[in-house]
């Protein structure tokens, strides 16, 4: 085999390998679920106190829900591939940077004891509080929690944002409501506000072991994109 031929074969092999790897990367990236984004509703400007100073900033609102199944929300007709998995109604949230975000979470699911009572506390909200069915709280009973909304992680090159709010267990004592294709009891309504910083993509997830399967009940819905976790895009 001539030297030139050997070098051509080596070059073609390397380039082919690179193309295969690139195609695999693009394939995996496109296979990741990208749910329709839910944009926060603009409520105009508001004034908040930051570090003892009054600051004017944009105020937006987001309303989402937690369900005992996937029959309502973004998973499609019949609840998608896992209709019996617990889910948030939306997992792709978009809010503006440097703004006050008021979130309302309608909690339709049952619950139980947290494996780590740390997440029964409210963290990172304005005033360190949340409102649960009209009552202002800083923590809830760790033995009766349905889910948590825990926003954490770092976007590249920006300050970490940590917000964690427990969503109490729904004891489901009333007549079920029909929402979409599912039937749910009257929700526990949890409201809280937090301030966003600079632009970036943050992750949030539930810290109540509600996923089923394997170790610590953190499998299935808790370990799959689009059920009990998602992203908060600050833009």
């Amino acid at each position, binding site marked *: 085999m001539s030297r030139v031929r050997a070098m051509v074969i080596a070059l073609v092999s390397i380039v082919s390998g690179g193309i295969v790897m690139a195609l695999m990367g693009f394939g995996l990236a496109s296979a990741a679920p990208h749910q329709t984004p839910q944009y926060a509703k603009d409520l105009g400007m508001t004034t908040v106190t930051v570090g003892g100073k009054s600051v004017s900033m944009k105020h937006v609102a987001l309303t989402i829900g937690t369900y005992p199944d996937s029959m309502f929300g973004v998973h499609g007709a019949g609840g998608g591939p896992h209709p019996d998995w617990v889910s948030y109604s939306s997992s792709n949230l978009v809010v503006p940077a440097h703004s006050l975000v008021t979130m309302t979470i309608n909690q339709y699911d049952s619950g139980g004891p947290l494996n780590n009572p740390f997440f029964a506390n409210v963290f990172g909200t304005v005033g360190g509080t949340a409102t649960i069915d009209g009552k202002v709280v800083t923590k809830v009973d760790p033995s009766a929690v349905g889910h948590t909304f825990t926003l954490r992680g770092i976007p590249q090159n920006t300050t970490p944002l940590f917000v964690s709010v427990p969503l109490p267990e729904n004891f489901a004592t009333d007549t079920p409501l029909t929402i979409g294709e599912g039937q749910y009891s009257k929700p526990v309504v949890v409201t809280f506000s937090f301030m966003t910083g600079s632009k970036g993509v943050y*992750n949030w997830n539930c810290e109540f072991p509600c996923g089923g399967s394997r170790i610590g009940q953190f499998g299935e819905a808790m370990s799959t994109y689009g059920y009990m976790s998602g992203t908060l895009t600050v833009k």
Partner: protein
Amino acid sequence: MATNNDNKKAIYSIFWIWLVITIVGVLISIKAPAWLMPTSASSTMHLVIETIVVFSVAAAPVAALVYAVALYALVKWRWRGEGVPPDGPNLRNNSTLTAVWIVSSTMLTIFLLIWGLAALAVDEGGGNGKNPMTVDVTGQQWAWSFTYPGTHVASNELYLPVNDKITFNVTSKDVVHGFWIVQMGVKVNANPGVSTSVSVTPDKIGTYDIRCTEICGLYHAYMVTRVHVLSDAAFSKWLSSQPSRA
């Protein structure tokens, strides 16, 4: 057939190549950690960096010998003729070379073993004579939480006083996580159902990184938080300003 002169010439050439690569290797071993390693914020981390430097310096001549022989062989001893090269001459046993190789390898290995055992035996930071402060560290998918025994304080970022010896009791609520304070040289697994203790004395005020080092699921890459090392006064002020999380 190679003559004695050819062999001597090859040995001299390999020696000079080895010397150059060794010098470069030693310089890189001494200088690279300062460029590549994170800032040191504890005596444990100082020792980690020192160990990397010493091991790299000790390894440099060995690696250089391999590179020198390989480089010389590739350039000078490659077959330039047509077809398959003929067999080389039979190798004779060289007992002097064998003895030198075995003795030097043994000495080097024993030195590294003693250094490593001594480094492991060092008490992780002497602190300032006070009883160690304890912090309970809990990992779960995909967040860290910290509680400070004797108080009702809990936090998602770690706060520590400078120059006090800290003992971490590390555990997990689900799968195995890895608790790594990057700039303090502390890394220990967080195992479910087990509490593992590790100590360190932070010696530099500042904000440093905590990461999970065991692939633990969907958002493993985001299982990060920070540690704030404060002066004693600032730490006491922070502790007293925290709400009760009991």
